[in-house]
């Protein structure tokens, strides 16, 4: 398996990426910046899912925020229940329920909150709830051969619906504010600096695991079918494959990745709000994948890191002008280098490196993934 999982060059890329997020960042950054990078890396989960689903499968979902949000909310519900022990909430009219429920005259924990008192259940729900949701959407759409632009807009509508629902049912969901003031995980204070470092490494390890899973899918026979489906769906169907099932699988997988990212986001940032479910974050996540290179799993990680880093630093330096810069970046990526950073790397940096190493340039495969050391310095 390992022999075919990655080419030698891809192993190097994976090693560089792992070294970067496991060693370089923690060694060079203070806890505040490291926590920020940890937050960016949770978006990378979504971007990796999109590379598979959009770049390889040709299914553009503008609703990945749904799954990111559902995963995050599942985790937030557990943490909130833990933070709302009767002792902590003694001043409420109904102690023992989350504060926002008390403000909205809810006097009893709703039944669907009760299972989230269990940590094992929560861990399962973080992945299963979004996947079920994705499966329902996928089943309805792909079985009826809805694809392309329609699919994009319908997922967008789902994101809008879910946001309105969460905001509207604030007695049960926390409304616009979201679920805030999360404190401990099984008695372990997640707000301390030490906890943040540990959570960062858990997050980084999960991300690398997700990258490996993604790569396994990519190099498998299924991965080749996926590309075939993207390019000529009918021919795959005529060859006797059930295209809809394959699409549903990849869509659910992308949803699961997003959900893990969402749960890690909640843990690292300490709250979850409907502003991650809506249309804007969903499109932004597509843009991370596009900037990184829609065909490159590693590129997705760099895309999420670089776009967010640029967003943070632009908005620190020119708070009133950063939208110009962001808008310009998106247009530039689409217009001038549609394969994103990975594409740039492949066409410009790789030959250069090869020349420096005095080795013949291996013909670049279409799906070659790559890291760009120059960009790392900028981080």
């Amino acid at each position, binding site marked *: 398996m390992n022999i075919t999982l990655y080419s030698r060059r891809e192993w190097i890329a994976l090693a560089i990426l792992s070294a970067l997020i496991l060693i370089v960042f923690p060694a060079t950054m203070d806890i505040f910046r490291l926590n920020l990078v940890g937050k960016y890396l949770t978006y990378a989960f979504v971007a990796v899912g999109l590379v598979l689903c959009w770049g390889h499968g040709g299914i553009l979902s503008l609703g990945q925020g749904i799954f990111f949000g559902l995963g995050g909310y599942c985790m937030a519900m557990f943490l909130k229940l833990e933070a709302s022990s009767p002792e902590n909430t003694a001043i409420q009219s109904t102690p023992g329920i989350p504060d926002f429920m008390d403000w*909205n005259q809810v006097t009893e924990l709703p039944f669907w909150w009760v299972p989230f008192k269990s940590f094992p259940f929560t861990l399962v729900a973080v992945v299963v709830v979004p996947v079920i949701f994705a499966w329902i959407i996928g089943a309805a759409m792909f079985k009826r051969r809805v694809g392309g632009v329609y699919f994009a807009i319908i997922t967008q509508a789902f994101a809008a619906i879910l946001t309105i629902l969460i905001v509207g049912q*604030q007695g049960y969901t926390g409304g616009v*504010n979201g679920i*805030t*003031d999360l404190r401990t995980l099984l008695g372990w204070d997640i707000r301390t600096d030490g906890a943040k470092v540990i959570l960062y490494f858990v997050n980084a390890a999960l991300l690398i695991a997700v990258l490996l899973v993604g790569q396994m899918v990519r190099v498998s026979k299924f991965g080749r079918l996926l590309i075939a489906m993207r390019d000529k769906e009918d021919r795959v169907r005529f060859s006797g494959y059930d295209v809809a099932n394959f699409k549903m699988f990849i869509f659910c997988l992308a949803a699961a990745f997003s959900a893990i990212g969402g749960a890690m986001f909640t843990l690292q940032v300490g709250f979850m709000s409907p*502003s991650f479910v809506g249309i804007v974050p969903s499109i932004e996540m597509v843009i991370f994948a596009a900037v990184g290179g829609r065909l490159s799993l590693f590129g997705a990680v760099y895309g999420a890191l670089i776009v967010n880093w640029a967003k943070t630093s632009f908005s620190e330096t020119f708070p*009133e002008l950063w*939208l110009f810069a962001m808008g310009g970046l998106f247009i530039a990526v689409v217009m001038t280098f549609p394969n994103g950073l990975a594409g740039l790397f492949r066409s410009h940096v790789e030959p250069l490196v090869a020349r420096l190493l005095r080795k013949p340039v291996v013909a670049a495969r279409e799906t070659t993934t790559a890291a760009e050391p120059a960009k790392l310095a900028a981080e």
Partner: protein
Amino acid sequence: MMSDDTPRKSPIATRRRVLAGMSALPFMGILGTKVSAADYPTAVVNTTGLAVTDDKVTVGILHSVTGTMSISETGSVQAEKLAIKQINDAGGVLGRQIDFIQEDGASDWPTFAEKAKKLLVQDKVASVMGCWTSASRKAVLPVFEQYNGMLYYPTFYEGLEQSPNVIYTGQEATQQIIAGIDWVVSNKGAKSFYLLGSDYIWPRTSNKIARKHIEKLGLEVVGEEYYPLGHTQFNSVINKIKLRKPDVIYAIVVGGSNVAFYKQLKAAGIDMTKEKPLLLTISVTEDEILGIGGENIVGAYACMKYFQSLPNDNNVEFVKAFKEMWGDDIVIGDVTQAAYLGPWLWKMAVEKAGSFDIDKVREASPGIEFAKAPEGYVRIHENHHLWSKTRVGHALDDGQYEVVYETEDLVEPEPFPEGYQ
């Protein structure tokens, strides 16, 4: 609402008393008394490593200058910058000039949390003036509590909160609601109310308090409705209002929806100047009227603590200074004024404490009096909210309010109102 121990004084007497009190404390500096930084060595006034040097102290400004909320938050940023400039011109705080770092919350709550953390952890600011929506405050609150910062929060809000790390310079819900409803009941003979709001916590909590109060008075609520933020079609609810014929439409619609709501109300033939029904709002300040257009809201009543047209000397001076700095076309709403209070209240607390340390500033804060506030005399309550007056304004067609009523006494802030939960 009024507690019995509220001092009953005319505003003028109050101001005199405060001025007298200040002359006894020459270093309070409100009147521009110069204080030398040498009297307050940095090592003494800053024991917790804040961004305070021998001649400078850094504070943070954290509002949205991009995204949907920038419509509302721009005024607050301008007011805070004006206050900082005035304080600097008057000699600064403990002899140090105030420097500010402005961060953009981008109308996005997680961004607020991220930027708040940056201001506290990396920039070590001595205090932060910022946030507007409840959601953004809820997002930054754990950050301020964890890293022990001090936030001056300017917006009128739903209450149900009292953090040691926040000074709330706007009104909590009961301060804004009770007096207004009492006024329409006693002066306009209102018997029935239709409650309307955007769908999030502030309108819902406010309407809850309003409903309890209305029912306590033995009057009737004939409808209660919520619309998603950003909703632009109000014809159906206007039809419902016409059928139920309430005496008062109690509207807490916010943001872009506001404009749609009032334009459609007017177009549907509800002339607010006839006061049948009368419209009472707690969400439309002079800032919002810019977008709505004065002619579309003329005749409505708003219940706030501050209106740009307040005739007192402090306010005349404040409006003049504000227009000098930001241009003649500018309007000043309730929240803008509350944002202006933030830097001043912080400065006074620092000087009372003789230190920039957050813990000492917090300890010094309750009881701080600001007699030069544009809205008139205010005082910080033990619960970190302000004692302030509540006023009712009548909208004119030039986009200004005419003050038609103000409470005789300062209204006590009660973030956890008994009997309204």
